[in-house]
């Protein structure tokens, strides 16, 4: 057990525990706070995978914007949120069973795969992955079309959210 493995295990269990709390807490503000812990754990995993840029973006986009929007929405729809008697619907037991089966079959399937236990090769320190990522996202040989589609989708989502959430006039 090397220290880095211990760190991984700690982060992994913290992430999974927080994720579990997200789906089981009744109080949604708590669930949102646990979501923040889980998202932060994922950011730490990105750092361990040497994707520092994604880690920072994870904090910026997920924790700084998405989770705060969640908390915002919870506060705005407070009315009956705090005390719903049963937080899960009547299929919860079956769904839990399916989730566990799905997880175990995924693990069994993946274990058949030869690269399952692959180890990481060191990345050359002379590489600047941020520059590579930036060029890949806008180069015609790279991902410029998905990138542009994503930008259009974000714009559409922005306008759509505005239209949907806006109070109708004369109502």
């Amino acid at each position: 057990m090397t220290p880095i493995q211990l760190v991984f295990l700690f982060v992994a269990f913290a992430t999974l525990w927080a994720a579990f709390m997200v789906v089981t807490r009744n109080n949604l503000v708590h669930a949102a706070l646990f979501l923040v812990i889980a998202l932060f754990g994922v950011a730490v995993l990105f750092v361990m995978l040497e994707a520092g840029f994604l880690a920072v973006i994870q904090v910026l986009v997920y924790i700084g914007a998405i989770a705060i929007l969640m908390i915002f929405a919870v506060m705005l729809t407070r009315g009956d949120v705090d005390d719903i008697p049963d937080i899960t619907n009547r299929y919860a037991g079956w769904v839990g069973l399916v989730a566990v089966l799905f997880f175990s079959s995924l693990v069994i399937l993946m274990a058949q795969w030869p690269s399952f236990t692959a180890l990481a090769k060191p990345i050359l320190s002379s590489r600047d992955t941020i520059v590579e990522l930036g060029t890949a996202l806008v180069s015609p040989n790279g991902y410029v079309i998905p990138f542009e589609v994503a930008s259009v989708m974000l714009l559409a989502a922005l306008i759509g959210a505005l239209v949907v959430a806006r109070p109708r006039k004369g109502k």
Partner: protein
Amino acid sequence: MQIETALLIEWVVKSTILIFALLTGFAYTTFYERRLLALIQVRIGPNRTGPFGFLQPAADGLKLIFKEELIPANAYKFVFILAPILTVIPALIIMAVVPWGGAIELFGRQIALGLTDINVAILYLLSVASISVYGIVLAGWSSDNKYAMMGGLRSSAQMLSYELSLGLAFVVPILLAGSMSLNQIIEAQRGVWFIFYQPIAALVFYIAMLAEVNRAPFDMPEAEQELTAGYHTEYSGMKFSLFFMGEYMKMIAVSAIFATLFLGGYRGPFVDTYPLLGPLYLFLKVFLSLGLMIWIRATLPRLRYDRLMAFGWKILLPLSILNVFVTAVIIVVFGL
């Protein structure tokens, strides 16, 4: 991955220095603010404790420590205690990537003045700035007080809105320097400071950062006249002072970031021959920027809330988008 002991000691020492600098800076910023405000309003300000009132911050601190701490009966206790901590931590860690000077030779080791130099420093700044809203929202929510709730909601809406302009203002120095590392941005300002190339970006950044740290004229979250004290209405004693601390340390931090991005950071005359001048120049720039913030507070009235949002979305954001666009086009066309 083997970290040498010397490096570890160096980091610990530098972090300690940084934290102490921020804490003293916080104490003396309050003093500076009170004296400068008094000067502008033709008053005298605190001048009795120690020479010129220099011990006033210590007296204030003692007073706050001995005050009784109240937790409202219906407050959500855990979050209520967590919120002030969540406000202070981002303010403390945001300075980690800001360099204070060049490298100096000490005990036969080359020591860079500055905690760390990461290649995504600017994104780090933005992400830490974006998590600092949590403390305020949670304080407002957990206090079980409608004024606190209003203050928390207002501040989160305000910070999220102005963060966009702040982010776009960050883009301009990145474009000019071609790097997200703060050291390289400072190097790129060796000749001319970016504020002279990009006065609009600097202005947008300054306005957005005032909104980000909830300073006048954007201090809606704590508008005394309408919200009693906003999100920290229910806080007292040390928990209140943590909010206070967070706010002033954030003022120092954003001033240092402004100085780094637009005023050449630690650069100044003779800094290459005497690297120890670096922290001094940075301090001077931060001092001036803080003075400007206090001056603005003394001069401008608070904006109305809807006008503040309208200003952020309808003027500041389009202006900064246009600015980024024009800058990028100029850089591409003229190949700077």
